[in-house]
């Protein structure tokens, strides 16, 4: 198997294929069910898998993944892991809400983790909620500061930024909502263009949306659209404008153009939950991943960004953590 993933720097060369049965016989088995976006979504499914791989390498658990092909696969896939004696089954995405409810009831002995959704009435389900709006807020604020200060090379005189959403759905919208609020805070007269591509895969379409927004004066673009957003970053790169990454640190996509990234720690949540099951400290209920606990946050900042801007953003971060600023997850 090709070991080309650059997700972890670990030197353990456990081929990700056909798990070698070297672990202890009683090692924990963890099943991951993606939603229909699949592992290549450049977003939460992918991140969850990164977390699982980390758990495999560092905690010695045995992981397995199944990518759902349609909405009707959720229940069978979750059940299958439960039947086969997996200790933890991870459901990625709010779309699996009802499926998890149902399967968790049928398999009370199995622990479940659902990402991006809250299920509170089951003793064997833990939910991971991400305050991505808080990360979006900081990203928006940084964009606003840069726009008003024209403090990056090549920024035009219009205060216009663009947001490209993959779809009008909560995990996307929470980022966008935060971004809008943060931007308005720092640049009240500026304009946020918001468009949805209705695709998480079509890179060429993402590129078109970006070009369209750039032609309307946007010079910082925040794509929240998985693979489709990569196309947008690509377009931004060839036009010499700026982008803000999402979900993971996407600076590697365009090191000269990505100002920063609004990230959410799906990988952390998966890793932590695996660990808790392994050490018998699994607890049901909702875990909020927010700025305070570093569950969400900003990625690497472009070197050209003035220190004053970074300081201001850090100050905002403190205010959010202290609860002084409340960020809403609803798009305007």
């Amino acid at each position, binding site marked *: 198997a090709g070991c080309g993933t*650059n997700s972890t720097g670990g030197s353990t060369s456990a081929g990700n294929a056909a798990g070698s049965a070297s672990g202890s016989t009683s090692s924990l088995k963890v099943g991951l069910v993606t939603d229909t976006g699949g592992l290549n979504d450049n977003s939460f499914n992918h991140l969850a898998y990164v977390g699982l791989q980390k758990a495999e390498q560092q905690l010695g658990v045995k992981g397995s993944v199944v990518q759902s092909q349609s909405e009707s696969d959720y229940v069978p896939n979750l059940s299958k892991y439960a039947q086969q004696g997996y200790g933890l089954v991870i459901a990625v995405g709010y779309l699996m809400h009802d499926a998890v409810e149902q399967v968790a009831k049928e398999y009370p002995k199995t622990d479940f983790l659902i990402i991006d959704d809250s299920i509170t009435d089951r003793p064997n389900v833990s939910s991971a909620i991400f305050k991505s709006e808080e990360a979006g807020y900081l990203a928006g604020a940084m964009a606003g500061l840069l726009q008003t200060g024209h403090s990056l090379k090549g920024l035009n005189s219009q205060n216009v930024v663009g947001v490209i959403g993959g779809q009008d759905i909560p995990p996307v919208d929470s980022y966008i909502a935060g971004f809008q609020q943060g931007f308005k805070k720092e640049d009240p007269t500026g304009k946020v263009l918001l468009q949805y591509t209705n695709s998480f895969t079509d890179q060429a379409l993402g590129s078109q949306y970006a070009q369209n927004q750039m032609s309307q004066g946007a010079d910082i673009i925040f794509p929240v659209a998985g693979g489709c957003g990569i196309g947008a970053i690509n377009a931004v790169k060839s036009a010499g404008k700026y982008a803000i990454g999402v979900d993971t640190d996407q600076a590697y996509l365009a090191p000269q153009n990505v100002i920063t990234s609004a990230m959410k720690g799906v990988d952390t949540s998966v890793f932590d939950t695996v660990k808790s099951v392994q050490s018998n400290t699994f607890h049901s209920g909702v875990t909020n991943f927010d700025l305070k606990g570093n569950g969400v946050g900003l990625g690497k900042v472009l070197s050209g960004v003035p220190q004053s801007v970074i300081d201001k953003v850090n100050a905002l971060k403190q205010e959010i953590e202290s609860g002084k600023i409340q960020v809403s997850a609803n798009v305007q």
Partner: protein
Amino acid sequence: MNIFADPQIWASTLSMAVPLALPAIGGTFSERTGVVNVAMEGIMLMGAFFGVAFAYWTGSAWIGLLMALVIGGLTSAAFAWGAIRVSADQVVLGMAINIFAGGITAFLLDTVFGFNGTPVSTPKLPNVSIPGIDKIPYIGEIFTNQSILVYVMILIVILSHWFLFHTRLGLRMRSVGENPLAADTVGINVWRLRYSGVIIGGLLSALGGAYLSIGVLNSFSVNMTNGRGYIALAAMIFGKWTPFGAFGAALLFGFSTALGIVLQGHGVSSNLLQMIPYGLTILALTGLVGRSTPPAADGLPYEPKR
């Protein structure tokens, strides 16, 4: 609204037409020789993936493009073998290629490049401006800094029309798609022409796919063609199996997609706005185009019982 005054919408139109027009013309070649081709989607994906992969491995987008064509050609040759030599159901075969291509490109992306996708250092094909034209005010902006494949497409449209309707080989190709037995009885090699038609179709589809991955971008993602092969099928029918028709249909589609993008951000649901290209196509089809009759032997296997 002065959205039409902005040359960006026309530039968008043109660039979004490329990955539709190329496979649509490719399909035209295939169907003009009598082989129904729904494999455009899959062959585009193959072209897109291998274009990027080889561009990365060799460090040259041109070699990437070449390999996209080679792989696209090979894939369509497999399709052609099934459709022509074995007389298998052409639609089933085409769907099989599409499913296979979607699978194999995703599989290879996973196993070869991992879940972060193709490396960002992959080269892409150059964008060019045509000296002279780029000085003309409005038009110039449309033709400035477009991918080189945009110009290649325009060339291909013209060449294809000339080839199909003004050359001896083109006449023979069309005759094979209309009545292979008649063509056979005047000594034309039906199978060879059908193979050529399908493989030309494959090359053009792969070119369209490569445009997506190394023309506009320099990366591949799973299912990045996003149904364009099927839209191209529609464009081919819409264009009544002619290169200019297919090009026109692709432009219409590109334009209405661009329109859908531009109109967004005014409070209307993006879902509703994205219906525009599809709705417009139906309207144009029923209002302007009407009946489009395929080549008479389109989809019919030719197997002389010798």
